[in-house]
């Protein structure tokens, strides 16, 4: 099947991911600015099932956060031009009333941010904030909600939750704030949890604790999780499937195992090849991706990666002029690249695989 999922009205059956819990179809998020239109997300499609963890990776500015804010309906009104569909159990959230989305948020979907302070109110105790969030969606007394809040804080590993529940966010350390925000996000048992760089601001030993926590809670609640990060190590720890984004578009989608053992996109090759790895012999020299990330106002024509891609000249000029379609090249492995499958196999076997 080769129907293009990137075109408006493309066949919805051909999209990465299997199921119907969350369906993102041809999402476009454009910001008009004085310098021109910033095309932060430009034709993105994927599916997500309950119980599944999807990792979205890409360099800074590739559109990861904008995607998650669109799903959560968190772009302030009037700032972004959004088109396409975000279907949560068939219910289209794009264009839905703010009231409707607010109801879903918290109850059906919740988000964890990179900076917990931005998501928590400095003047209210941590407990108060969890209690209020819980009572918006659950008709219970303050006592019951407070007990639930203490429960949740204990579950995410806050020591002495019974007394820490009355402390303010600034009295918590960075790792504890991140835990408290996770407790708040999970207090209504959401089916969809989006974690945007949840551990980027944390130290590596605390990061390991938080990743364990997200993994355990996900298994316990069987929720659908999207984890957004620029750290390939973090997605390798958590994700079932991985979506690699470049310049607001999907470059590659596959199971986490395939992304790490048989990646097919030159950008994915570049990412995997450029980072020093503790689990490999130390290389004398790193192999960076040449050039710099693209401007999203003047996105390169054709394949947006072409100015940095060493294989662009293998395709008779198509890379500079035609946007590659995002196609299923093998079961559940999607790719947007003009390379012929012979060339791809050859490059992978000869140049890339021996280096990784």
């Amino acid at each position, binding site marked *: 099947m080769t129907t293009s999922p990137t075109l408006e009205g493309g066949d919805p059956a051909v999209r990465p991911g299997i199921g119907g819990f969350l369906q993102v179809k041809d999402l476009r998020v454009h910001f008009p600015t004085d310098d021109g239109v910033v095309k932060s997300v430009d034709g993105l499609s994927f599916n997500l099932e309950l119980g599944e963890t999807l990792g979205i990776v890409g360099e800074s500015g590739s559109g990861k956060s904008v995607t998650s804010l669109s799903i959560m309906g968190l772009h302030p009104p009037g700032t972004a031009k959004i088109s396409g569909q975000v279907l949560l159990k068939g219910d289209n959230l794009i264009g839905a009333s703010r009231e409707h989305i607010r109801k879903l948020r918290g109850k059906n979907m919740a988000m964890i941010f990179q900076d917990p302070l931005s998501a928590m109110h400095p003047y209210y105790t941590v407990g108060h904030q969890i209690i209020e969030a819980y009572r918006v969606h659950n008709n219970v007394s303050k006592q019951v909600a407070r007990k639930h809040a203490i429960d949740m804080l204990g579950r995410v590993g806050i020591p002495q939750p019974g007394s820490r529940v009355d402390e303010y966010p600034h009295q918590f350390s960075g790792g*504890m704030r991140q835990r408290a925000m996770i407790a708040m996000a999970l207090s209504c048992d959401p089916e969809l949890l989006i974690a945007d760089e949840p551990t980027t601001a944390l130290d590596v030993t605390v990061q390991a604790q938080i990743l364990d926590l997200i993994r355990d809670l996900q298994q316990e609640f069987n929720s659908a999780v999207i984890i957004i990060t620029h750290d390939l190590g973090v997605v390798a720890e958590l994700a079932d499937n991985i979506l690699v984004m470049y310049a607001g578009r999907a470059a590659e989608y596959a199971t986490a195992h395939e992304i790490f053992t048989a990646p097919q996109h030159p950008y994915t090759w570049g990412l995997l090849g450029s980072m020093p790895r503790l689990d490999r012999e*130390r290389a004398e020299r790193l192999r960076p991706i040449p050039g710099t990330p693209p401007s999203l106002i003047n996105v390169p024509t054709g394949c947006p990666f072409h100015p940095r891609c060493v294989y662009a000249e293998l395709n008779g000029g198509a890379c500079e002029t035609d946007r590659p379609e995002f196609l299923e090249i093998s079961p559940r492995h999607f790719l947007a690249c003009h390379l012929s499958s012979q060339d791809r196999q050859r490059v992978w076997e000869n140049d890339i695989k021996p280096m990784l």
Partner: protein
Amino acid sequence: MTSAPTNAASSQSNASGGGEDILVVTDLQKHFPIRRGLLQRKVGAVQAVDGMSFTVRKGETLSLVGESGCGKTTTGRMLTRLLEPTGGTILFEGRDITHISMGKMRPLRRDVQMIFQDPYGSLNPRHTVGTIVGAPFRLQNVKTEHSTKKTVQELLELVGLSPEHYNRYPHEFSGGQRQRIGIARALALKPKLIVADEPVSALDVSIQAQVINLLEDLQDELGLTYVTIAHDLSVVRHMSDRVAVMYLGKMVEIADRTPLYERPMHPYTVALMSAVPIPDTGRRTKRDRIRLEGDVPSPINPPSACRFHTRCWKAKEICSTIEPPLAELAPGHRVACHFPENLIDLPVPAVRADSPAAP
């Protein structure tokens, strides 16, 4: 009392051989006073750095690693004398620079330079690239061989930018390019020692590799010595000849890169390495993980004796009562722990008996 730590620093450099020492740091300390109330009375101190001894050899890269707040930046700022130590000594090329006055600082400013973590905040947005990179010449009143402009343009080329970038402003550049501008500025006066504070952590992986390669090329070409500060252990392994691990203001382990990564001896180093997420899905279940509990304690009120004892899975009573000395447990490999890991076939008591600075 500084005699014991002095021995510690120099005996270490003798034992591991190698080139001459460009920097000898002994019992270095920085306590920031905490003041309260109208009279701003001192009510306590942040023990940001508390007794670091190490040497840096000419031409090598020594990395300082550790979690946020452990004192890496503070150490780096003392080495470049952007901060004055509250205790200990720093010898640069044999000269004591610990408390050197502003007036005598000028030659030091040429020899020792710092690269900062944030490529956005460290460049003045109202100045052109030419002004920024040329600033050291003006500040130091240095006459350049040709015009300053020509020299600056040569520097830009050296770091992989174009001479035409001379009249452009920082905001026109990407993060990686801005970091190159910062590097060009640091190189302007041909320094001998560069302290680089998280030089690549604000950059994307693909750009990180470009800047790391650049730093390595410049080191080879110009014979630079680096002290790098970083928290990414994979990046550190790639860049360093030797690595020093810090915890709460103390050095807990220092060794050559390979022994440190292959046979870490301090429990904290072991935990740190085990926490690094590995980009390999096959590792998910197989790894023997060590999970530390809790966060790094506050440097205002650090735990007694071994500061790691509140999080260490090997801690025994002695760990909270007697501070373990930084002892050389293998040639060039110094560790501060009562119950080190990976010690297998070493004559432990013999080595530890003559270790200096016994408590």
